[in-house]
């Protein structure tokens, strides 16, 4: 934790401030109406899928559910962009940037808050998948404890990979969000084109398979992701310090 001239500890409260921020929607009744509606809707969808799976496949390849994990780092990426953009949209950016702390401290507090938020989301989805599959196996005639354990074993790798790439995804999101606050925001459309092309070629040339099957490369990738994450945070702090363009 960082000490402010040895008097006050502020970094942890700053992380809590960022972590507890909720996405605010205009109109006070919005949240209260839609939350239970969404819950019922997704609950019904889950039950329908469960019964369809049971009828069609008899739960022979439940491990396919773990493919959900490929999308989870993108949630972290999205909420990290939002962490900065909401400051602008909710007219709190002036308060945030006028806080008497170094830009790296401000951006780092958002980084840790978004890391925690992402871990929270991944954990909830992970538990939901386990509960869902446990229920499915109970309904299935072929369900057994060993099938359940096998299913869990298949999930460890993608979930672990999700957690390990989080620093890179969160810092990338924060950097992109920061660019919205600078005069470089006009170049963002070009960035998205390059970003799309990169992922297209990465998957076309078997990038995913290569990294997942080669153990050493896998750890090299993780080390790189941590180093790049740190560099991106420093870059974001530099952008806020020197290129901020808030009108």
């Amino acid at each position, binding site marked *: 934790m960082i000490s*402010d001239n040895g008097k*006050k500890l*502020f970094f942890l*409260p*700053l992380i809590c*401030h960022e972590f*507890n*921020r*909720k996405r*605010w929607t205009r109109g*006070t009744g919005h949240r209260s109406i839609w939350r239970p509606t969404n819950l019922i809707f997704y609950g019904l969808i889950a039950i329908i899928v469960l019964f369809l799976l049971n009828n069609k496949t008899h739960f022979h390849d439940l491990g396919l559910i773990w493919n959900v994990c490929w999308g989870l780092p993108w949630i972290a990426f999205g909420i990290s962009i939002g962490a900065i953009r909401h400051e602008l949209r*909710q*007219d*709190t*950016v*002036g*308060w945030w*940037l*006028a*806080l*008497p*702390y*170094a*830009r790296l401290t401000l951006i780092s507090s958002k980084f840790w808050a978004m890391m925690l938020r992402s871990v929270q989301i991944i954990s909830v989805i992970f538990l939901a998948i386990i509960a869902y599959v446990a229920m499915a196996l109970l309904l299935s005639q072929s369900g057994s404890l060993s099938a359940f354990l096998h299913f869990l074993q298949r999930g460890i790798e993608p979930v672990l990979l999700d957690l390990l790439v989080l620093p890179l995804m969160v810092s990338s999101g924060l950097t992109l969000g920061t660019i919205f606050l600078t005069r470089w925001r006009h170049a963002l459309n070009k960035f998205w084109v390059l970003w799309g092309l990169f992922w297209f070629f990465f998957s076309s040339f078997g990038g995913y398979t290569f990294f997942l099957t080669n153990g050493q490369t896998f750890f090299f990738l993780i080390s790189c992701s941590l180093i790049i994450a740190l560099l991106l945070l420093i870059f974001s702090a530099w952008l806020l*310090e*020197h290129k*901020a*363009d*808030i*009108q």
Partner: protein
Amino acid sequence: MSEPVIEAKVLSKRYGQKQAIDQLTLQVERGSVTALLGANGAGKSTFFRMVTGLVSPDSGELTVLGRAPGWQTNRQIAYLPDRARWYKQYTTEGTLRFGEQFLPGFDSGLAKKMAEQMHLPFEMPVQGMSKGQEARLMLILCVCRDVPLIILDEPFSGIDGASRAAIMDGLIDAISERQQTLLLSTHEITEAEGLFDNVLFLSKGHLRFSGSAEALRAEFGSIDRLARQLSEEEQL
């Protein structure tokens, strides 16, 4: 004149095609209540953002409390940004705790007293508050800080008459007790001009007019009348 709390020398800032600040040179006297006046787009908010280190000037020199502006100088500045809103999930109580945790010089005892005087609900989140209540809460965050410089950018914007009066009373109470410099911008000149010691008029990013409020009142009858006169001249 004592050492200025803010000194700008030939300051310029451009946003794309728009020259927001144009060769601006001015000083803000220490311990004074200084009004920065001018029409919308005159460069007032941009100047405040430069003073608080939110944006950097393209050219020129700016010193705040004797040094270049940045996050370090913000320890000594209480700043209410233009069109600012407060974090929706915070209650009054949570906001005062925020002030205590993050804003140097924040006097939570005084803040609590002011919140009671301004009839702010302690348990209600900002999301449920009126705009006037939210504005009062943000003002408390600024004026309850024992710092040498307070900057308020349009503190009365979009606020009803009753809230405006409450904010004004709070402002007078707070600044009369401390030796602070208050720099504010407002379009509600009639109601606020009793506070002013000095006035700076900006027009199209440069200083059009400056002087002591007393002298300007003696010459033009009121600051509001002078502001209207300058605005009419600008439109011609």
